[in-house]
């Protein structure tokens, strides 16, 4: 029921005088409210961290020995000012792709890798250029490079895709990023474990499957969550490789 004292609005007629003040106030509140929310929400975004593509370094070219974990690594033997000899680089293709097809024929051999570096703290990865320009054989005899077993470890932390984590996406970790991380891992981009406690001085470890294979499908449900797991850790140059035991994966609160 309506009453005489309430102004009556009809859309196709002029706004009644009794409503104009209120509607003007609503318009001002709406516009300023949306502007305020835009500002409040815009500045409330978390820092995605320091990881990034280092295009500012320019194209990097180094030589080293190709190893397959099965994720391709380059044990650098001839570096440059950014990537020293003795460093171990994880290798990835463009986007969410891997470089295994190019790396497999070069396993155990000296190769030249060229591309752009991604870097977050002591985690880095090289996104290779296309074809043999990105990864090709180098002259010389590959030296024997040691792999040092560090035993079985129980660790807590997060399973991420190494490329987004290293800075390909900012932010590049967390539950909101899980589908993207899974898609990278499906593309065989190297997975990385972010340990809550340093392991032999390292926060980041390359993950492989239990039998030296790829990251197991059953473990995808645990990606981007805070988990505990067990596995064998080995050192390859300055990179730790964690061979996970998927049976031990457990979500932590």
């Amino acid at each position, binding site marked *: *029921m309506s009453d005489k004292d309430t102004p009556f609005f009809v*859309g196709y007629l002029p706004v009644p005088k009794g409503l104009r003040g209120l509607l003007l106030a609503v318009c001002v509140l709406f516009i300023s409210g949306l502007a305020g929310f835009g500002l409040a929400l815009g500045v409330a975004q978390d820092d995605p961290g320091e990881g990034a593509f280092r295009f500012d370094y320019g194209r990097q070219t180094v030589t080293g020995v190709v190893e397959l974990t099965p994720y391709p690594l380059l044990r650098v033997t001839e570096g440059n000012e950014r990537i020293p000899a003795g460093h171990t680089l994880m290798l990835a293709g463009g986007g969410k792709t891997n470089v295994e097809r190019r790396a497999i024929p070069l396993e155990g051999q000296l190769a030249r890798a060229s591309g752009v570096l991604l870097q977050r703290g002591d985690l880095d990865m090289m996104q290779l250029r296309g074809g043999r320009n990105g990864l090709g054989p180098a002259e010389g005899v590959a030296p024997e490079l040691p792999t040092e077993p560090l035993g079985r470890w129980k660790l807590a932390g997060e399973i991420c895709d190494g490329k987004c984590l290293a800075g390909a996406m900012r932010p590049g970790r967390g539950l909101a990023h899980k589908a993207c991380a899974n898609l990278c891992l499906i593309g065989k981009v190297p997975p990385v474990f972010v340990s809550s406690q340093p392991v032999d001085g390292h926060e980041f470890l390359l993950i492989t499957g239990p039998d030296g294979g790829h990251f197991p499908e059953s473990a995808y449900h645990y990606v981007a969550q805070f988990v505990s797991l067990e596995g064998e850790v080995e050192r390859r140059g300055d990179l730790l490789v964690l061979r996970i035991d998927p049976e031990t994966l457990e979500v932590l609160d």
Partner: protein
Amino acid sequence: MSVKYIPVQWNSNKYIYDAVMLLGVALFLYIFLYAAPGLLSHERPINPQVHNARAFGACAFVMLTVILCIGPLARLDKRYLPLLYNRRHFGVMTVFVALTHAGYILDWYFAFSMSDKNEALLFANTSYGQLAGFPFEAFGIFSLFTLILLAATSHDFWMKFLSPPVWKRIHYLIYPAYLSVVAHVSFGILQDQQNHVFTVIFIGGAAAVGGLHLLAALHERRADQALSAEAADWVPVCDVSEMTEGFAKIRLLANGDRVAVYLNDGKLSAISNACAHQNGPLGEGRIIDCLVTCPWHGFQYDVTSGRSPAPFTEKVPTYNLKIEGTDVLVDPKANPPGTYVEPLIAPKAGGTA
């Protein structure tokens, strides 16, 4: 009111409504996209695609929240009915903002792989059996498709084509869609957020929607209790002295229908309280130019026949009335829509017909 379908029947109020809405949305996006980054003390910026996706996603959530607050607000205080008038434009705009959000997400997180990005959206995360890491994208997809459906059928053509009750039921999907948006945000960005400003705004917005709907429901329940009538051959409405020229008294009949009894030019007539357009409460309107005018969108009806004036074709049921002393009574059996009923001369207060 419409006699033929055109995309939008513009009038000055709609222009003002849309201009205010667009200005608000443009300011939200401009400030989020261009002003906020300068205020963030991040060592390196968030990816522009992620920043854009967040801006459009947050904007769509705020817009949807405002849209859903308008209905109960107008039920609680009729001075806010003008906000309801052009709400569908607000809804359609929200769909475009939400689509832009989805586009950025799809072209960023689900691109760059060997798979089609649309397929990747569906298979990349299949952890449906767990809460943490649940594929919250599924909630977003449901909401987006529902909003598209609602926007696509928002025109009066679809209401006429589907019939108002079916159309109304379809458009109640806005509530599952909003709940799904709440789940989308709760299982997504809220899981990672360290800064809790968004959490507070999000919970506040969702609580405002829920709280206002609860208040409006309680308000209507109380009002319905006051209006409800026992089943009878003739249902008492009120004493004629309680009626005001140009206004109505509403009665809730035992079968759930509402009847609006109007006093027009000293005569009494009764029509259904539900407008043929969107079931707006005709009894909460008033008579303008001898026609009952709906408070929602201004649809008009001849109070004696329930028919819209030519060339319009809308019709609502009418009811028979009788007067006993000064008591107005209504026959709860509705006449077919558009049936003329001779109006009754209202007795003077304290007298007889």
